[in-house]
């Protein structure tokens, strides 16, 4: 299996709401010499994992995508399915984990699939972009073109990359994977208590006030710790954080951006960075900028 080869599962939000996240991510992959290929076909992961034990049909979309990855992966010599959106990561990995652990569920799913002449051999490994970047920290270090002086970054993980702990990419109470990436990028980061606190997730649709309260707490916590940049990897967290930020009367001078936007900027890959973010970063880095 080639270490640099990944299949890529986009998901709805990356394709519609977080375009710059995906585009900058691919710019970064290219700079890191990673071969990332989008699935020819993919199905909605379901956006949330069905928690009830009798609820297998909800996993079907995810299983279809896993099967597709199994098939395409064979040609590409990889079994790794990369996701940007941690919701997709969470659902796909949990479904994968469930099928591996529970032969009864697997059999049940197979019964559905048999009608379509499909089968799943459990070979796919679902990985999140953070794990991949962590693995190639050496390359990141080499690819950095701008110095991040003047930036103080608050990492924000949210829930879905970390919980439940069986599928999480790091210690759910005290993750450090993003911090390691920041170190490779050469930017300073802050310690604040809310990096794994829930942003409010989909509750923003049902109880907007609650979601805004949670997200505001995160932003203020990061700001109080001295951050001027709040970095996320999730389109839903990004939305809720922006919702909270925009609802604030006294807006703290802190910018909410995707990790790959920051990375692309520091690697000098500006073409897909949204102009407001570009100018924010430019203004903070100021004259100490380019060194490469």
């Amino acid at each position, binding site marked *: 299996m080639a270490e640099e080869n990944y299949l890529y599962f986009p998901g709805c939000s990356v394709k519609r709401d977080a375009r710059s996240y995906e585009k900058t991510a691919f710019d970064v992959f290219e700079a890191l010499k990673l071969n990332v290929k989008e699935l020819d076909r993919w199905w909605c992961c379901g956006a949330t994992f069905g928690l009830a034990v009798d609820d297998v049909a909800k996993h079907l979309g995810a299983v279809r995508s896993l099967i597709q990855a199994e098939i395409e992966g064979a040609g590409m010599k990889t079994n790794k399915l990369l996701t940007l959106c941690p919701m997709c990561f969470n659902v796909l990995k949990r479904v994968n984990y469930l099928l591996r652990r529970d032969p009864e569920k697997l059999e049940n799913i197979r019964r559905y699939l048999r009608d379509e002449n499909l089968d799943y051999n459990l070979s796919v490994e679902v990985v999140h972009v953070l794990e991949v970047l962590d693995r190639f920290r050496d390359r990141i270090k080499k690819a950095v073109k701008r110095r991040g002086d003047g930036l103080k970054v608050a990492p924000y993980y949210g829930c879905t990359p970390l919980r439940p702990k069986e599928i999480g990419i790091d210690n759910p*109470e005290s993750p450090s994977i993003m911090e390691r990436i920041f170190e490779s990028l050469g930017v300073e980061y802050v310690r604040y*208590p809310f990096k794994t606190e829930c942003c409010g997730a989909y509750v923003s649709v049902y109880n907007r006030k609650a979601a805004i309260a949670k997200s505001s707490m995160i932003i203020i916590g990061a700001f109080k710790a001295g951050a001027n940049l709040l970095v996320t990897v999730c389109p839903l967290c990004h939305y809720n954080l922006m919702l909270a930020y925009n609802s604030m009367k006294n807006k703290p001078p802190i910018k909410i951006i995707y990790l790959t936007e920051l990375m692309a900027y520091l690697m000098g890959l500006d073409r897909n960075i949204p102009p407001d973010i570009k100018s924010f970063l430019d203004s903070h880095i100021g004259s100490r900028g380019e060194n490469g």
Partner: protein
Amino acid sequence: MLDGIDYSEPRIGVFVCHCGTNIAAVVDVKKVVEEAKKLPGVVHAEDYMYMCSGIGQQLIINAIREKKLNGVVVAACTPSLHYETFARAVESAGLSRQRYKIVSIREYCSWVHFHDRKRATEKAIRIVAAAVAEIRDNKVYEPIRRKVIKKALVIGGGIAGMTAALDLANAGIPVILVEKEPTIGGKMIQLSVTFPTLDCAQCTITPRMAEVGKHPNIKLYTLSEVIDVSGHIGNFHVKIRKKPRMVDPEECRLCGWCANACPVEVINEFTRGLSKRKAIYLPFPQAVPASFVIDEEHCTRCGMCVKVCPVNAINLDEKEEIIEEDVGAIILATGYDLYDGRKLPEYGYGIYKNVIDSLQFEQLIVPSGPTKGRIVRISDGKPAKRVVFIQCAGQRDVNHLPYCSKICCMYVAKEALMFKSKVPDGEAYIFYIDVRTAGKGYEEFYKKVQEIPGVKYIRGRVGKVWEDENGDLIVTGIDTLTGETVKIRADLVVLALGMIPNLDKRLVEKLKISTDEYGFAQEVHPKLKPVETEIGGVYIAGAVQGPKDISESVAQASAAASKALQLLTKDEIEKEPLIAEVDRERCDGCGLCVATCPYSAIKLEDGYARVDEIACEGCGMCVPSCPTGAINLRNMTNKQIHEIIKAVYGVR
């Protein structure tokens, strides 16, 4: 022939126990008896409600006498519980215990097959049939006698190990006490006061340490570890690795010039990291042996200390020693450690300086401690006015320690009381799930702490601890009784981390004892044999067996010493004669068994294999190696195994 018992034809009695309903509710006992009667060699079978009772034992004794039984099979609970009970009954009727067997139809049958009465009964019948087949061919061998070495080894110099060592030494038994640290004293010496009497812990333990240090019957090896154990009950051979102290304890005058001169500063483990010490140091003023010691790992061999020592006590070239000793009994008392708080990052242990564990808090209370008894924030040394205690931190939790460590409720109450006595205007918040105060005077003590104004017990959990921009700790949790969330700004957070066994896996392997699923040393029976291990002559004492407080540790240490004394006061003990035996008719002297034996107990003599009966441990590993079937394990011969299998499958 023994006491007029005729062994020419098998006359076996089978005794099936109901164990109340423990067996009888699942296994059809009557049917087992009926089937047993049909087995070859069986002349008598009966059942009884409690075979282990006096009446039950009498049934067996009477049957042996009246029916002229020469073999007895008891189908009841496990041998580890009642082997001896029935062995003594059988012997009192004049029958050798080698013609008796107890098989479990409770642990091995009724308790695990309660879902299938029919098959459980069938299985019980097969178990009985196998036992009858085995006993039918058992021979009576003369016991093998071994000398007992009247000396004991105690591993661990904490309160349990010291107590056991002193009990034995005072009874006239020479004791070797092995301690890993440079001084004895264990965890107790790190404590401030003890609950519920609030006695000063150091004042309680130091006289005992001194007694150990100067007792003529105790040979103390500090900085030492047991690295190998061989032999058996009454005669163990142990190897001890003694690390170099590099300071001669006989010469050291405790002047401390060496430490002043030493340029290397490291974290002091005795204060659990709350202070620093030098690479040459005195662990604490009352250490036994009373001598400085060089920390081999951190010493740079600069030689400054050697230059200033007025009595030339320091020798930087001292090497480690391997000491070998022979002992008759071993007492394991290696105690406990605290669960690693870093596994609870949500509480900030190891992240924020002011989040500490309970032993660190003890060090803040002790007048001779790193803060001279002042209770302060570790981060900046400011007085700590508000302390939050989190009980059951990482305990009673399937993600961490699933068990309860038993003592935390009490020591947290004590620590809160000591805090309030030192900081009268302070506030102590105690998060608890249940308060467990099972012990003499414990509930009263808890009540006393509750009465103190400023001590607030909160029934609930802490979710998270973090440090705000002012360096204060913020504790968020829930009070389940009001259902309200709680947020407390605190100077210190104290985690009541659970007890984990301080028991090296290699030592367990050397001693061949077993451990429970959490790594605590396993006793033979939780109620009746709490200090014995499965290995004869090896006893356990203190928290290495399970969480317990000081008084229980001391009681258990004395119990272990008493058990060891029962062994060591004998001149010789009988070893079960169930060893390997060579049939010279069949042996062709090929020597394969010689190579197989892990104890070198088989030698070739005059072209035949011969088993050394003292060295043979009776494992039977040599048996399958013999191409002619000439070597057999006594009372578990190839023929008997064949008969056992036949019996198991003879049942229809």
